[in-house]
């Protein structure tokens, strides 16, 4: 018997994917904010990639100034609400809270953060307005955390911004790639609408930029171009049988889930390949969609998984079973997926070696490959002088986010190779200052 019944209605879906960090009530926020010590040179600030003055916003909540708290958050991070919900706070701000050293629970910083931001969002209280017009126009490619953050900051600095987004909705992976129990579509989109209403950047949806002529048009119309394009599809494994029905990429599966919600099909017996956070998400999501058996297969040991420990714990808590030290050899089946043929592995001197004769087939009717996303190398090659590093990441000046083509700037997954929403949001905003400096320099 599976832990979860397959959801058939919106309510059942919301139940199976109940928010891990639900909205804090005023009473809870008062209790929790009262615990904060207001550390000097607080470790939580240093642990936050966007450098939010966390002790300040917690104190503002505590003193009845939730609007001020939201301002503190948004001044540092335009994805303030989303980050409060989707950030791996356990390893960032909350993980660094000095309370952990006493054995006490860390302050629930993420939930306090979203408590404050939701207040201003729900009340429609505006905190920002565009800066005095400079006359400069900037194109932003990609309406993800990097692109939107960059657009917001550019508007604040007075530049005109047009955002070009291939999909029909903004916020990138925050909507299309984050597990639904971390944030709902409605909440993600509400924050985007809240930002757009204040700062007035224009987003062209369903407007992919994917060819050289399109880039040329942007180059002729805009003084600078920001690349917030993220990563591409799930990389192919190169295994026999990978093309069989029901062998899907994790990124594609999660995107389908975010759009289709309870209408998303999942197998009865699912094998997820991979040991990163996306693998944990895909496994958890399969279980919450009602799969009877979900196996997480990883080619090394449990301790070597790239996923955060709390993400693996979360997957285990919904019934996901770990299968370690196995490497997939083939996706078996007859048209449709029927199993995965594995070989057991041993790790010697950091190298994974197959154990001869240990092959076995684990039966399943769905395979989810969570084995990394490909870079958008083909598209990036359309940009003259743009250098990529050996791993396909855009080379940029870390102080200005300027690429090797001076009119192009980049941040987010395409530049850092794949990180958290908070990294993209922080870097996208910082890149806006790089662009600002470039535009206003004589």
């Amino acid at each position, binding site marked *: 018997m599976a832990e979860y019944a397959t959801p058939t209605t919106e309510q059942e879906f919301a139940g199976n994917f109940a928010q891990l960090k639900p909205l804090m009530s005023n009473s809870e926020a*008062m*209790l929790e*904010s*009262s615990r904060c*010590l*207001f*550390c*000097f*040179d*607080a*470790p939580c*600030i240093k642990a*936050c990639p*966007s*450098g*939010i*003055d966390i002790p*300040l916003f917690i104190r503002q909540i*505590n003193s009845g100034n939730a609007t001020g708290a939201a301002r*503190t958050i948004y*001044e*540092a*991070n335009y994805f303030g609400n989303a980050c409060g919900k989707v950030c791996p706070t356990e390893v960032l701000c909350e993980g660094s809270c*000095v*309370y952990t*050293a*006493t054995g006490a629970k860390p302050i629930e910083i993420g939930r306090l953060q979203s408590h404050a931001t939701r207040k201003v969002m729900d009340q429609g209280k505006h905190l920002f307005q565009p800066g005095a017009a*400079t*006359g*400069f*126009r900037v194109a932003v490619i990609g309406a993800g955390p990097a692109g939107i953050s960059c657009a917001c900051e550019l508007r604040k600095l*007075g530049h005109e911004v047009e955002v070009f987004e291939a999909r029909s909705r903004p916020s990138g992976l925050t909507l299309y790639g984050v597990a639904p129990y971390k944030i709902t579509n409605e909440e993600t989109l509400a924050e985007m609408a809240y930002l757009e209403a204040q700062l007035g950047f224009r987003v062209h949806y369903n407007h992919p930029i994917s060819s050289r002529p399109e880039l040329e048009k942007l180059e002729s119309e805009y*003084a600078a171009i920001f690349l917030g394009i993220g990563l591409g599809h799930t990389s192919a494994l190169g295994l026999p049988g990978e093309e069989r029905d029901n062998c899907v990429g994790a990124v594609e599966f999660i995107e389908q889930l975010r759009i289709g919600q309870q209408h998303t099909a999942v197998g009865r017996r699912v094998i997820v390949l991979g040991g990163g956070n996306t693998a944990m998400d895909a496994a958890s999501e399969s279980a919450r969609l009602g799969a009877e058996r979900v196996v997480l297969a990883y080619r090394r040991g449990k301790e070597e998984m790239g996923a955060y420990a709390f993400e693996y714990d979360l997957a285990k808590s919904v019934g996901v079973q770990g299968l370690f030290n196995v490497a997939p050899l083939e996706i078996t089946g007859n048209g449709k997926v029927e199993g995965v043929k594995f070989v057991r592995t041993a790790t010697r001197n950091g190298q994974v070696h197959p154990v001869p004769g240990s092959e076995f087939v684990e039966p399943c009717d769905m395979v989810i490959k969570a084995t990394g996303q490909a870079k958008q190398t083909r598209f990036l090659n359309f940009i003259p002088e743009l250098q990529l590093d050996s791993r396909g990441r855009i080379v940029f000046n870390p102080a200005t986010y300027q690429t090797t083509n001076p009119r192009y700037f980049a941040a987010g997954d395409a530049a850092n190779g794949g990180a958290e929403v908070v990294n993209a949001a*922080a870097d996208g*905003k*910082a890149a806006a*200052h790089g662009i*600002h*400096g470039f*535009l*206003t*320099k*004589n």
Partner: protein
Amino acid sequence: MPDLSINFAGIKSPNPFWLASAPPTNSGYQVMKAFDAGWGGAVWKTLGVPVVNVSSRYGSVNYRDKRMMGFNNIELISDRPLADNLREIEEVKKRFPNHAVIASLMVQSRQEWHDIVRDVTNAGSDGIELNFGCPHGMCERGMGSAVGQEPEVLQTIVEWVMEVARIPVIVKLTPNISDITEPALAARRGGANAISLINTIQSIVGVDLDLFAPYPIVDGKGSNGGYCGPAVKPIALNMVKNCAQHPDVRLPISGIGGIETWRDAVEHILLGASSVQVCTAAMHYGFGIIREMTSGLEQYMAEKGFRTIDDMVGRALPNVKHWEDLNLQYKVTASINPEKCIGCQLCYTACEDGAHQAIRLQPGTRTPAIIDENCVGCNLCSLVCPVEQCITMERRDDGTRHQTWKERTAADDIPITFNDERAGGRHHWVPEPAAALGKEREKTLPGKARLYKEVAVKQKITE
């Protein structure tokens, strides 16, 4: 097993915990419930002249998530008929003959005082408390704290009461006065058997930021009220001590003010109280809170070897001195236990900004270090430290020398000019003023998470 019972100026009760004259003692129902729960006595809500109360009567001072750290009220004395109160006092005494019922009284004329003293005595009260403390409403009519602030008037009224009193009389003092011992002495001169203190402190507990009115708000307006609750304990303790130490007061003291736990009660007792009265704690948590008080007191007495309450009364008084009698040779400095430090650096910023710049940060760790030669032993770091026993104050002098300001004065060895070599702060290191500018600004004011330089717009794209 320690004996918690007391005999306070002739009033006996099974333990020293009495409910103070206040809303919890408004009726026989409440007093019986309290005695049932374990309270030793109750001072009935003040009986006297007829009053009318307002609606919206209490205000609170909250500290972060802690409610009612301070509390105030603009309620008056009992607004119930005297006859009802007298009948209920009689009923309570019949049911609880060994518990203390003290009638609090407030009337105006000599005849009224005589009448009401006789009435409550006939009803079976064990004692009388004269309410010379109420700081709102009643004082505007010449009673309550208006009496407590005029020692001669106070003495006269006590004398009127003593003319007819056949049971012990306690005078309840107002703290809204510069020297509490003056009314205490007046009470003694008038012949009172005991004093109780403190009554509430005149206060405004807060202002509504939208209505521009003080709490509690009565139809858009407010009035000063009487302040009580945990926040007033330090003021009460000092006044109890003042009365207990005064050589001419020499009256049993019922300690009142901020008592919520056994620990608060013991502090009052160690400074000279021989019974204690509680109100706010009962209003906040109900009568059941008594079980923590009695068990804590009993445990403490057993551990300390005190058999009776009297064994403890005033035990701290010999150690409460004037400043000039303190040992100037005593020296402590702070010590941080790195094993316990959690790295909040509150001690660092507190000392740096609020004390003597005697703590420094260390590279590679968040645990700060004490700069011994700068530490004056003020305690601040140990007070702000959130970890139990992490920062301790260690004695540095060898304990052999003892010299007080008084002794130095007698020896003609005190600094007398503004720049005297003998002044305490001479030669004590302080940083140069300008060294403060910009120091650790990114740590003190991390607000603008990323401090982007403002770039002036010099050029525009031509349309």
